[in-house]
């Protein structure tokens, strides 16, 4: 049974179709990244899947339950960490964990035990009795994640879990997501960061203007976008001669800024052969750069425009 399954999912706000017929199949135990720029329909899709918003068309099933017909069963099966960790700044971390346990009808003693264990897991034991208002962004996200896990959900929804975090906090969240997935949780995460999708996800769905434009594993999507190309700067020697040699390994686009490049027909495995061929011809290589296609290239190929903030690191 799929953890998440949607067919022709639609959500309109007046005349505006924020989500315009999205089909999704997320398998049990998968990490699925939903990638797209701001306003693409990621958050609207998630809000429908977590029962915060009723679809205006199509169907969606989460953990086997229809989100419109059996929302309470969906809520019992999912953990949710929404964008901008929605936490009460006046409560302490421990108080919020215990409240969350009560909301999920976990018996008091067990709830306290789970809360303490999760605070330990996300490294917030020392800060547990401090008010959340004093937490850093990373600590708030970790607490949010811990709260989403209190009832051991089958499917975990993370809406832009690392937006605005520093690299260390981001890495901590990624490590935790991987661990959770290793333990069997299905993770559905939305992100606008290419690196996040590339490094975490088993599969990536790309959404733009409310429509799915691509879906596959990160490597398959990148392979579809084009072959890797090798950029060669010569320390010494004739560029025209170098172009002739590189043409043996694939198409050679026009030379820019003194850099000769080749689209490697058989991928990165050909790099050694290229270097050897240039060396045998007496051409001294100054630098070599193997450029792999990115998810942004995939996005550009599918939509005709680059992903907002592409390549940019989260702040």
């Amino acid at each position, binding site marked *: 049974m799929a953890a998440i399954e949607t067919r022709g999912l639609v959500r309109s706000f007046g005349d505006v179709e924020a989500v315009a017929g999205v089909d999704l199949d997320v398998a049990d135990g998968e990490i699925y990244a939903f990638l797209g720029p701001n306003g693409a329909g990621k958050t609207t899709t998630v809000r429908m899947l977590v*029962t915060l918003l009723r679809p205006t068309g199509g169907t969606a099933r989460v953990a086997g339950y229809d989100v419109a017909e059996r929302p*309470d069963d969906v809520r019992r099966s999912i953990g*949710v960490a*929404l*964008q901008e960790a929605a936490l009460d700044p006046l*409560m302490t971390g421990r108080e919020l964990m215990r409240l969350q346990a009560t*909301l*999920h*009808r976990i018996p008091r003693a067990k709830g306290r035990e789970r809360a303490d264990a999760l605070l330990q897991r996300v490294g917030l034991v020392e800060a547990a009795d401090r*008010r959340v208002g004093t937490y850093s962004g990373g600590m708030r996200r970790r607490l949010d994640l811990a709260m989403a896990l209190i009832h051991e959900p089958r499917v975990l929804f993370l809406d832009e879990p690392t937006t605005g975090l520093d690299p260390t906090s981001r890495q901590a969240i990624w490590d935790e997501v991987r661990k959770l997935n290793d333990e069997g949780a299905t993770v559905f995460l939305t992100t606008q960061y290419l690196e996040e999708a590339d490094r975490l996800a088993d599969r990536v769905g790309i959404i733009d203007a409310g429509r799915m434009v691509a879906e596959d594993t990160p490597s398959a999507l990148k392979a579809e976008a084009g072959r890797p190309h090798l950029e060669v700067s010569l320390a010494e020697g004739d560029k025209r001669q170098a172009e002739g040699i590189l043409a043996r390994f694939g198409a050679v686009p026009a030379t820019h800024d003194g850099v000769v490049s080749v689209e490697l027909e058989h991928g990165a495995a050909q790099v050694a052969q290229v270097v050897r061929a240039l060396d045998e011809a007496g051409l001294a290589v100054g630098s070599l750069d193997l450029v792999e296609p990115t998810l942004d290239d995939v996005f550009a190929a599918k939509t005709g425009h680059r992903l907002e903030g592409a390549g940019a690191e989260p702040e």
Partner: protein
Amino acid sequence: MTDYLRVVAALGRRSVKQAFRRPQFLAPILLFPTLFLILNTGGAGSAEDIPGFPEVNGILDFELPGTLIQCTMLAGVSAGISLALDVEVGFLDRLVTAPIHRSAIVLGRLAATAVLGLLAGVYFLVVGFLSGMTVEGGPLGVLVILVMVPLSALAFGAIGSALALRSGRASVVQGIFPIVFVILFLSSAFFPRDLLTEPAATIADFNPMSYMTEGIRDGVISDVSLEPVLKGLAGVALLAAIGIALCSYALRARLRAG
């Protein structure tokens, strides 16, 4: 049912803690009515000599019931602001994605407002007794206060919460703050209905706040009589019914809109 009450109690506890941890929530409930009480009793001390003014042991006995209703109105505004902040920061979404009955979210908030009303009622009774107030109705009069005040806070809390759920903005709820005073002055909270001039007198006749205040006042300035207490409870019930209906409508509309 036990689970439901456990959730209501947990959400209520959280709301009470919020009030104690953010002075901005507690100050309007205690500080402003105390200042008003001082001003009213200090500035209107000779009002009790006006012909037609009810017989009282002192102006404080007459004014304190109005202060109690004022305090419960402000508790309602505070409850609304607090709930609107939950909407603004997304905490309401967290509650809505939990497998709980939606009514528990509002009921928890209202239960907390009633508890805060009760605590404020006790505070004003202590302040009153220390300042020479007498409760002619004796323990029964005190009991009427301790029942009416929390219920009144709950009713105003429902109206504040409805506004919070409808607008989703704390600033909008805060905006009704001045209206609270206007509504209160158009009732018998601080002056007898019989002595009000038109059109205030007619408005006060239709203002539930008049009956709520008089329900409390009756046991303070005389023996407890059934009629004013029942009228006061009817006023509370009417406001609570309107508030809860509006809350329910506003919550459903908010959930539908997502």
